[in-house]
């Protein structure tokens, strides 16, 4: 399991013992985001994937669990449904889930790796997304082919650019109703750049070289779990990376950690504080999963912190929605 085991992170001041975690170690009264991880299968096997997703994974959420998510969503007045994976497009019940959410008027985000939209069987999704007014959050680790392909596999950058052009043609990134946000993540054992300056750079490079437009860029910090954690451990970078995260600890980022404002639901309905805790198997402090709590009002809960949480509080902070502090 490598560094996916949080106990492998040694020699740092325990995150849970930070003073700010005593004040802000519980969720907000009302939660905005329900993130749902509907499958581990992916067309890619990115080197940094905290989930360890890939073509060989078979876990996927069935329609009963999706329906339970929608009921729990309504019962607790969540505001955003955030669908992720794996590549969500590879779950056969994904179109049903998105359509059901759209019928209910739910603001829905889909996290796409872009390249999947060029695969046979997935070509229909760009038009489907536009029709359902889905907000897209698309991975693009860098604006150059070499750097992107090094992280995500040969040919991925070209496929991403083709998908982005198609999305632009449909109005994504141009029509105010069709939001297209990109995600940068560092290509190694270092922290992300300033989100604002990197956004300007992405905007210019992608426009000049490819004529591509987008709305926002989220600069994410790689979390030392999953495949990225394994890389850190294998390459001897884990102690240095943790030291970097701890040195960059920003107390002001704790209050706005994403885990305080969301739940993260796994394919089998189990609930976690975030997708990283999901990857580590650290379940949320709740009396059951989605199927047990469908009609329940979710209580304020204590966050299950571990030392990988330093990745969300380093520097400008990091979340699935970019910098937080």
């Amino acid at each position, binding site marked *: 399991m490598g560094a996916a085991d949080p106990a492998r992170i040694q020699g740092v001041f325990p995150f849970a013992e930070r003073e700010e975690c005593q004040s802000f170690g519980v969720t907000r009264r009302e939660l905005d985001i329900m993130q749902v991880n509907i499958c581990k299968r992916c067309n890619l096997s990115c080197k940094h994937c905290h989930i360890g997703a890939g073509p060989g994974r078979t876990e996927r959420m069935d329609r009963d669990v999706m329906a339970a998510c929608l009921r729990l969503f309504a019962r607790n007045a969540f505001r955003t449904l955030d669908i992720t994976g794996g590549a969500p497009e590879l779950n056969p019940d994904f179109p049903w889930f998105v359509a059901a959410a759209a019928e209910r008027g739910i603001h829905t985000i889909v996290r796409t790796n872009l390249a999947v939209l060029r695969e046979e069987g997935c070509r229909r999704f760009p038009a489907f997304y536009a029709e359902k007014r889905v907000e897209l959050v698309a991975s693009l680790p860098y604006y150059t082919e070499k750097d992107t392909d090094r992280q995500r596999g040969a040919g991925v950058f070209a496929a991403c650019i083709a998908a982005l052009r198609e999305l632009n043609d449909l109005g994504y990134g141009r029509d105010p109703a069709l939001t297209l946000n990109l995600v*940068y993540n560092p290509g*190694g054992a*270092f922290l*992300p*750049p300033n989100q604002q*300056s990197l956004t300007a*750079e992405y905007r210019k490079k992608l426009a000049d070289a490819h004529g591509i437009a987008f709305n926002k860029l989220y600069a994410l910090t790689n979390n030392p779990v999953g495949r990225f954690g394994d890389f850190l451990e294998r390459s001897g970078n884990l102690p240095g990376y943790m030291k970097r995260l701890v040195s960059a600890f920003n107390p002001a980022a704790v209050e706005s950690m994403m885990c305080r404002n969301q739940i993260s639901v796994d394919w089998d309905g189990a609930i976690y504080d975030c997708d990283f805790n999901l990857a580590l198997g650290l379940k949320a402090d709740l009396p059951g999963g989605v199927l047990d709590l469908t009609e329940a009002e979710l209580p304020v809960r204590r966050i299950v912190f571990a030392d990988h949480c330093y990745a969300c509080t380093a520097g400008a902070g990091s979340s699935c929605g970019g910098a937080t502090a």
Partner: protein
Amino acid sequence: MKTYYNPEDLEQFGNMGEDAPALWDKFMAYYGGVFEEGALTAKEKALIAFAVAHAVQCPYCIDSYTQTLLQMGVNREQMIEAVHAAAAIRGGATLAHGMQAKNVVKQLEL
């Protein structure tokens, strides 16, 4: 001492302030000011520092500024172009000094 350059020394750089703290404080204030955003961006300044580090062949600065640039979103291709800028100036300066040799030869030859 087993080696003239030790990577761990980089983390001990602050100890240089022990014996001349007033001068150290002035240097650090100046250093910090130099690399703040100004007419040049912090990233442009870091790229200059990175190139100069190669020109003056400081392994500590190369290590440090390579990491700084990675964290600023600079990729390998951009870094190597900066190294070439340093190399071009070093090489150009060497060649330009060839004019001195040519002048001496011109003065002395029949």
